[in-house]
């Protein structure tokens, strides 16, 4: 799997991450970067959808604990991630493919580092195991195995 390039989706809260940085430059540096308003916006369904869409990992960057612009969105996200990781492992998706970091970096210089670091971990883990989703015509054939 040496040439495996993991697909990582990174959500980051605009209040804590990169708001003083050059957004265009950061966008060019970070693939699949989705700045959002509050990490608490990231629903478990978004993460699950990312995996369905072919992601190998999801990284959420939220504000430091106790520092959420909306009271506790970041902690909500952290609880959600904990629950979701348990569910993902039942689907055979390693829990460490979802990571949440609660910290801050107004310049956003750290974002590419976090992305790189997690991508490295994902590279070691390899791609998410794919399943061939049920297709009407071939349901039986794909299922036979």
């Amino acid at each position: 799997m040496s040439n495996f390039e993991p697909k990582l989706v990174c959500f980051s809260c605009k209040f804590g991450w990169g708001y003083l940085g050059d957004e265009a430059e950061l966008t060019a540096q970070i693939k699949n970067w989705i700045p959002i308003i509050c990490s608490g916006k990231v629903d478990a369904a978004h993460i699950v959808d990312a995996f369905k869409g072919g992601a190998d990992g999801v990284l959420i960057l939220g504000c430091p604990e106790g520092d959420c612009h909306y009271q506790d969105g970041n902690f909500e996200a952290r609880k959600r991630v904990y629950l979701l990781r348990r569910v993902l492992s039942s689907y055979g998706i390693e829990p460490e493919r979802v990571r949440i970091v609660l910290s801050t970096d107004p310049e956003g210089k750290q974002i590419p580092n976090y992305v790189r670091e997690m991508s490295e971990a994902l590279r070691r883990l390899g791609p998410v195991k794919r399943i061939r989703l049920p297709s009407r015509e071939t349901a039986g054939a794909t299922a036979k195995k």
Partner: protein
Amino acid sequence: MATKPKIAICWLGGCGGCDEAVVDLNEAVLQVADAVEFVLWPVAMDFKYHHVEGMKDKEIALSIINGHVRNCDHEEVARLLRQKSQLILAFGACACFGGTPGLANFTTKEDIFNWVYRDAPTVVNPKGNYPQPKCKVDGKELTLPEFYGQVYALSQIIDVDYYLPGCPPPPDLIASAVNAVLAGKLPPRGSTLAPHKALCDTCERNKTKPPRIALKDIKRIHEVEANPDTCFLAQGILCLGPATRSGCGDVCMKINIPCRGCFGPVEGVKDAGSKFISALASMLDVEDERQVRELVDKLDDLAGYLYRFSAPVSTLVRKRV
């Protein structure tokens, strides 16, 4: 006399509960029986599949199909009925979402076979025989339906026109679905013939639900004596009402059992489990990650709890190995 519309009722991988639910219509089923001509109902009548094979395409007005699809026999019958029917109604949680048998999507075919034919303590299988789709006995070939690698909901195999969820569906919704077909007054194809709202919206206990639920502990229904009038979630007992479609008649609520989700996700939601995760997370009244862990790790098989009836149609479908 105008010919009566032909109706088939058929089970695939079903438990018989859905067929029983039709019988439970009591007098109403006799009225229906007067208005229609049954052409197949394996549980109750002695028609054979080859009778259906001999029919013209679309000759059956409505096929009511319950049960999930897990082997080639189920698939063949589903395809046959699709070919011969104008309308297909996916009846019950198994046909709509895969149902409780769909929990098997969290394990593999290999693990199931190893347990059932080798490892379970009650198994005596000295020769290590596993069922094969084909085998020779006394020079003759015997066949068994091929067991697939996962459970499928009906719509993953054939086009489905309408859905009626529930485990099993309740009599009032069955009667109105059948009457709607007979009267030709049906909503757009693809509709679920049940209310759109979440169960909480119709639940009697909702008025006891505080505006913000703060759970310090999560209990399972058998561990406590639940108050019969208070919202389960407010009592710290998991209830899937917020993420489940209403229409069941609140039957579980009435016998003091929390909602398990047999009506599937509310209208417009694909994956009920991940929706519930977000809701549940915000209910956990904990200070730090350690407390989250203490609370959540007590829940055995969280995925099974959240997708008890719907794993095959969930976004991630099944376990990857």
